[in-house]
């Protein structure tokens, strides 16, 4: 590990960073947790979920997009910001159809884990109950769009890593949807394969391998073992 000489303040504690780090990268590097959904250490910042919104020198900004610089005063784990995060999570829950008890991703789901972390106990807002049919056309992969939070990680992984451009975003406003880039609009008519990066990048339960349900029992899954805040260990 290289010497980290520069630092900024995160919730009153000194946080060292590498040149070129965003606030979220620097925090993750040393195992400090800033809640996030659309950010992934292997990909460029997206800034769409807004869960990582912090206050930088008093001004609201997404921690995944703000560059770390010496002397910044960053607030993250405050009552106000966590309440805001809970509201954003509730918005994501009512926007889709999220039935955790019957979801194969339960326990491995970043949305569910973050909601537990933020103390979310109910949806607060009225549900939208959108009509989003599943796509079972692919021999090895199931798409359940009901759970999509539009983080675009699959879009980015398929385009930038797999070079296949299988996914896209369409529509606007509350009608914004994850789309499959094929003439039929079905996954079975794309070159997507189970070994693709896009096949295991989904933080929620949209992209699932077929015939592998409940291989790990509920109760022994990633976020059953430790809360998401204790799993923020990045690479040095």
């Amino acid at each position, binding site marked *: 590990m290289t010497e980290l000489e520069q630092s900024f303040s995160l919730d009153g504690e000194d946080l060292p960073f590498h040149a070129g780090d965003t606030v979220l990268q620097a925090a993750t590097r040393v195992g400090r947790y800033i809640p996030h959904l659309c950010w992934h250490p292997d990909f460029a*910042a997206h*800034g*769409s*979920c*807004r*869960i990582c*919104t912090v206050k930088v020198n008093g001004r*609201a900004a*997404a921690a995944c*997009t703000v*560059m770390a610089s010496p002397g910044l005063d960053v607030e993250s784990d405050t009552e106000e910001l966590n309440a*805001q995060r809970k*509201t*954003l999570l509730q*918005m*994501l829950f*009512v*926007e889709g159809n999220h039935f955790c008890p019957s979801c194969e991703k339960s326990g491995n789901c970043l949305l569910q884990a973050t909601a537990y972390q933020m103390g979310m106990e109910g949806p607060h*807002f*009225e549900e*939208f109950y959108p009509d989003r049919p599943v796509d079972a056309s692919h021999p090895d992969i199931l798409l359940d769009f009901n759970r999509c*939070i*539009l983080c675009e990680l699959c879009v980015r992984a398929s385009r930038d890593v797999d070079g296949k451009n299988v996914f896209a*975003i369409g*529509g*606007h*406003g*509350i*009608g*914004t949807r994850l789309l499959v880039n094929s003439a039929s609009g079905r996954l079975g008519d794309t070159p997507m394969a189970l070994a693709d990066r896009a096949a295991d990048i989904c933080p929620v339960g949209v992209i699932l391998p077929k015939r592998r349900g409940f291989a790990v029992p509920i109760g022994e899954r990633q976020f059953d073992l430790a809360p998401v805040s204790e799993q923020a260990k990045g690479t040095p």
Partner: protein
Amino acid sequence: MLLTRHADSVVEGMSIAAFLVGARRGLIYLRGEYRYLLESLQATLQRRREAGLLGTSILGHAGFDFDIQIHVGAGAYVCGEESSLIESLEGKRGTPRIRPPFPVERGYLGFPTIVNNVETFCAAVHIALHDGAWWAAIGTPKSTGTKIHSVSGDCARPGLYEYPFGTRIGRILEDCGATDTQAVQVGGPSGVCLSAFEFGRRIAFEDVPSAGAFMVFDRSRDMFEVARGFAHFFAHESCGFCTPCRVGTALVVKRMDKLAAGRGSRHDIDVLFELDKLMHAATHCGLGATACNPLRDTIAKFRPAYERHLKSLYFEPAFDLDAELSIARHMTGRDDPAAHLEAAS
């Protein structure tokens, strides 16, 4: 209007900008609504090429090479934000980019890019022809020059009006023949809603800033319905990229429709304030941050318009249980009092 009648000024302003920043390539983004201007704009560009005002070595200046292409796009409200416009120019969805980097560092196709509207380019021509002091003498010390206003709504003479900065709202209302005016929405849906006691205020960056829209509402209008119209507008125009704007604008619509249906309570107004606060603090761009502006202004200034729509000032559920039972009544062929909830009358 500037592209219709003053296209040469717009192109001239772009050429001046190109000369100053050393740009070789210019783009005019023409929204679908203005597709009918394409041929005349192409003709303007061609005429200027033939006159040596576009192309290589413009007016004999070695190295001053600049030409302009016209890009026809669907456009969207959010494309008024420069990085969304650039995304759209590149053929992508019109969503705002993460900034920094700003377009002047990395813009269209990664090249340094300046984005300005037609009014600014025309102003640049006037300033080049006269001088900066002449321009600065118009308007107020902090807001120099003029502003074109698109006046619409309840007035005898809607249309385009150009005024120096510092002009009173009341003066514009008098000139356009507005009478019995209840409110003016200045600067478009994201702007500010002014009520009659504020008509002495002035259009200027230091008082009432404006992007140009000036919508007049007389006393026959229900300002709650005006705000509800804007709520629907923002829900429609949200690009859907970030959570608070995509879901927040839709939740605002649900609350406003609930109030309009006569099922609202004071609690719903509190929720609207909460949504406004969240969207101000957490959205990716200014569209979501300002989406509740008309709402906040009209609640503050025209609260009775809202309270008229409240069923009671206390909590009411989001649905009418007795009305929900109508399908069951229909299926059983009943409509007698016993088939209704006790509370219903």
